[in-house]
């Protein structure tokens, strides 16, 4: 690397990074303890010290296009061991937050997602939307008789079209985001092969990532280093439980949708899509298991975050926003179920309304939220294998 790069240390960039969670990055005196401590960092051009130096130098492009920020699973070992309390783990998290904020348009959403002061706007949109639906169906009154949420929010004409549109909007955003992400990795350039090497096929990379990283959380488990602390265990179990909870709930939702819409053509499928499901339905039972698993995961992850040593690792707004929304989804989902079974109509309907608001927030804002890592990290991990930044396992 003999050619000199032109650097322009950028005050505003540093302030931006500090605002999205990298507030201690200036304390770094570049000793490299972090890179040595990290169990995942590759030997060649290891992170996160490189990123700490780039941030100081103001190499915005390098940082924004850096694939390594996605290789980090944020265990916080580097921050624990940092002799200056510079929290390199937080910087990488901040860089990811920056990516969530600005990868796809409308970037105004990214801005709204970056600070708690915009939260009312984010809540107001779905709140107004669902309130409008409620107004259209029952004129904002609580219906008589059996508690059936479809009375206020009928699936066919409200939930399904709105949620489908939201879903496709999210998918389209991700397609855009992913293409930009891959382009940015390409812009960062550099091949990591030394000597002769057979390029792995994209399919093998995808299989490896989905099976090992996503399916088993292999690196996520290893993250934390040789000494496994109880909080690392908590984080691993919590994240895995929550992940599989989402998988189960997604499958159940899919089955219901399939039964409902498919049932209009193939009639024997109809009961599978008829809500409310009876408690003895196998997929209702699966949903209950998913709910419990999710709440278990949330408890683990929340307790870990609350017990983190603030001087070592700080949780950003992005972390709390996501935890908050997911909590809202699960709490209102469970609440709506319980109030419905208990026959408390007012509470059941209102809770269900809040549930819809939360679910919409989760999906509609997903590409700009921390949950974006579900897609971006997966893509980055596949790409990293493809270009040889990390080997196939």
């Amino acid at each position, binding site marked *: 690397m003999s050619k000199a790069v032109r650097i322009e*240390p950028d005050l505003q960039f540093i302030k931006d990074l500090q605002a999205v969670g990298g507030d201690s990055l*200036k304390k770094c005196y570049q000793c490299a303890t972090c890179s040595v401590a990290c169990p995942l960092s590759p030997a060649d051009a290891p992170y996160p010290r490189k990123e700490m130096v780039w941030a*100081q130098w103001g190499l915005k492009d390098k940082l924004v296009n850096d694939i390594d920020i996605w290789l980090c699973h944020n265990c916080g070992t580097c921050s624990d061991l940092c002799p200056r309390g510079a929290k390199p783990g937080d910087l990488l998290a901040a860089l990811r937050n920056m990516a969530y904020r600005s990868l796809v348009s409308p970037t105004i959403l990214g801005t709204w997602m970056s600070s708690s002061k915009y939260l009312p706007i984010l809540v107001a949109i779905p709140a107004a939307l669902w309130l409008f639906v409620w107004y259209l169906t029952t004129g904002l009154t609580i219906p008589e008789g059996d508690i059936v949420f479809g009375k206020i929010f009928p699936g066919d004409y409200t939930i399904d079209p709105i949620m489908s549109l939201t879903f496709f909007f999210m998918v389209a955003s991700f397609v855009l985001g992913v293409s930009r992400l891959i382009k940015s990795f390409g812009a960062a350039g550099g091949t990591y092969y030394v000597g002769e090497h057979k390029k792995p096929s994209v399919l093998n990379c995808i299989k490896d990532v989905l099976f090992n990283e996503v399916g088993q959380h292999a690196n996520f488990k290893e993250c934390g280093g040789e000494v496994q602390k109880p909080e690392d265990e908590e984080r691993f179990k919590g994240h895995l439980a929550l992940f599989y909870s989402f998988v189960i709930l997604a499958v159940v939702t899919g089955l219901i949708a399939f039964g409902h819409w498919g049932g209009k053509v193939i009639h024997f499928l109809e009961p599978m899509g008829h809500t409310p499901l009876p408690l003895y339905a196998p997929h209702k039972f699966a949903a209950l298991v998913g709910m419990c698993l999710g709440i278990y995961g949330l408890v683990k992850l929340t307790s870990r975050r609350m017990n983190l040593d603030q001087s070592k690792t700080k949780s950003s707004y992005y972390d709390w926003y996501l935890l908050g929304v997911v909590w809202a989804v699960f709490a209102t989902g469970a609440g709506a179920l319980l109030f419905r079974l208990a026959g408390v109509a007012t509470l059941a309907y209102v809770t269900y309304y809040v549930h819809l608001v939360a679910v919409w927030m989760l999906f509609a804002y997903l590409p700009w939220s921390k949950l974006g890592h579900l897609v971006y990290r997966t893509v980055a991990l596949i790409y990293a294998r493809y270009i040889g930044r990390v080997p196939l396992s």
Partner: protein
Amino acid sequence: MAEKIGVYFDESAIGPYLNVEDLAENVRNRWGGNCPVIETSPILAGEEGRAMIESAIEAGTIDGVLVCGSSPRVDWQFFDFGPAIPVERVNLREQCGMCFPEGEDEELKTLMAIDYINMGMIKLQKTLVPEPEQIETVRTVLVVGGGWTGLHAALHAAGGGADVVLLEKSDQLGGKARTMYKTVPLAPPYTQAHPTGIEDLIARVQAEPRIEVVTGAEMQALEGAPGAYTAKFTNGTEKAVGAVILATGWVPQDGKALAPLGYGSVPGVVTTAEFEAMMKDGQLKAKRVAFVLNTAKALPRDLYQPACAPEPAEGEPAGEEAEEPAFKDMESARHLPYASAVNSVVALKQAGYVRELDANAQAYIIYEDMMVQGIHERFYKAAQDDPGVMLTKGYVARVEPGEGGSVLLTVKNTLLGQDFELAADLVVLPTGMVPTTAKDPVMNFVYRQGPAFPDLDLFDGFCDSNYICFPYETRRTGVYAAGAVRQPMLMDNAEEDAAGAALKAIQCIESANRGVAVHPRSGDLTYPKFNFVRCTQCKRCTEECPFGALDDDEKGTPKPNPTRCRRCGTCMGACPERVISFDNYSVDQIGSAIKAIKVPDNMETDGPRILILACENDAYPALDMAAMRGKSWSPYARILPVRCLGSVNAIWVADAMSKGVDGVMMLGCKYGDDYQCHFVKGSEICNRRKENIAETLNRLGVEPDRVEQYQVAIDEYDKVPGMIEEFMAMILEKGPNPFKGY
């Protein structure tokens, strides 16, 4: 002179190693007539032992005390009976009992003990009660230099009860501090630069009635000796002063040292001193300022030396007639890196100026080594936390004009291996700090050895005689250096220095008026006495004195100045006529003690004998430590402590040789550039004198290599026995001293 000697054996110290009764019996037989008291005590080093000896002194039974027990370096508080009662400690525990090698004939141990007791007895008999020379002293401290250090020194000296004359070269007090916008933090929490407070300090000095301020004048001459100096100023006034604090500070290094970094050729490149002035005058406009802390680029070639020596011009006689310049300027390229610890912190401070003026301005600090000492770590952390201050490690390889009037830096050897370029509106380079004593004699001593401090080239002109042990001390007793003239430092250290030097100056005056040595033999009552009848005016003593204590008259007769003297005895060692002596340390005394060693005639059957003259400051404690840590050495060695190897007179070697001793080993401090000598020059001078000794030995028909000097540091106790072993092996190979048996 002690005539009635009380001999005391400490059973607790030497009982485990030696038969005390036999030794006492031996003393009775050999010295009975001189020793009214020969006693053994179970525990001598204690209040009871002390009371026992005191009662004998009070009864008038004894007038000298010989203590046979532990090393004189321990338990000394029990064996001090005032200046009128000489005490000699015979070290039979560490250097006879403990060091005796296992398996050797016990008889040899007894012989060793008897030799040591006899040597001690002789030394005691040849010790006089010291008569101090007291002089009338002036309780005035002269402070040279009215800057931050000098002002503080003046206040401290006045606070300590002395009158003060404060001499400042310029017309105004304040020095460099007056030109500064702010200082690095001097008070908790040490995170923010703040105004220096120099105006208040000047006002306090001016309000202090004990301090007389003289401005617009320099030192023209300093005559006399500590306690009674006459200071002459360039404005014609004269002051009687007792001691001097040298606080003349530093001058900025010539800018040519910074030329490789673009200074003088690239617009927008300034030094920290110029930058400070820009800030102070409100001229600072730059929004991007780079501070460069690299010094290596200035170093590879010494800009102060011509590449090759100029050829002597045709017809001009080379060599001899070219006269030595009176004073050689010691400014060099190295003054830049010496100031790195100061420049590092100053860069942090000045980066703060950039940020203070404009919240959107940026400062870049590029360093190879960020040297931030002590509490200033807090300041460093605070600067680091500022988002507008970039700190990065790298080597500034090039400084050149950039686009739009900017300056472009090329930085190599960065942490990521990635070179980078950086544009700045202004580049600030470090300032080398050249001590004033590198440029000028400053004090203008009227001393025989010249107007300047000696050998400062060893420290590139910094006026500091011994780097670790004795801060403030210079090679001229009575003159104490403080502040940046001594070592590059920030204002907080300078303030501490000022206090330290003020205390030293007061101590010096208070010692001179009681006739005792100031340093390092603080409280020593003796001083060199000259028997001028036999003096041949050879001037060796006046030339060799490491501290310039001795002046001389036109004929060359030495003029002792006891208050300048540090009592090392280098003059005594130098004198070929042996006319110099101390009341308790003389050529005759040590020579006689050497002659008291019993040397057997037959080396084959009774073994050789070697004499070890050991420096009492380093080598002697190293030997003690070796023994305490279970090391042992030859039972044929006899150790005699000396004040300094510089005090070793050639006649002692001749005495030993004529007595039949097979070899003389001189154990002294390290000398040369990294000297560790208490008296700076002693061991080096001793080494030079060995030539004379070799000549003497040749004349006597003895191989000169029977006399060897070894260098040992106080912590090298583990190496000392090996040195003795090596020397012993060499002697055994040579065989017996040809003088043996005569």
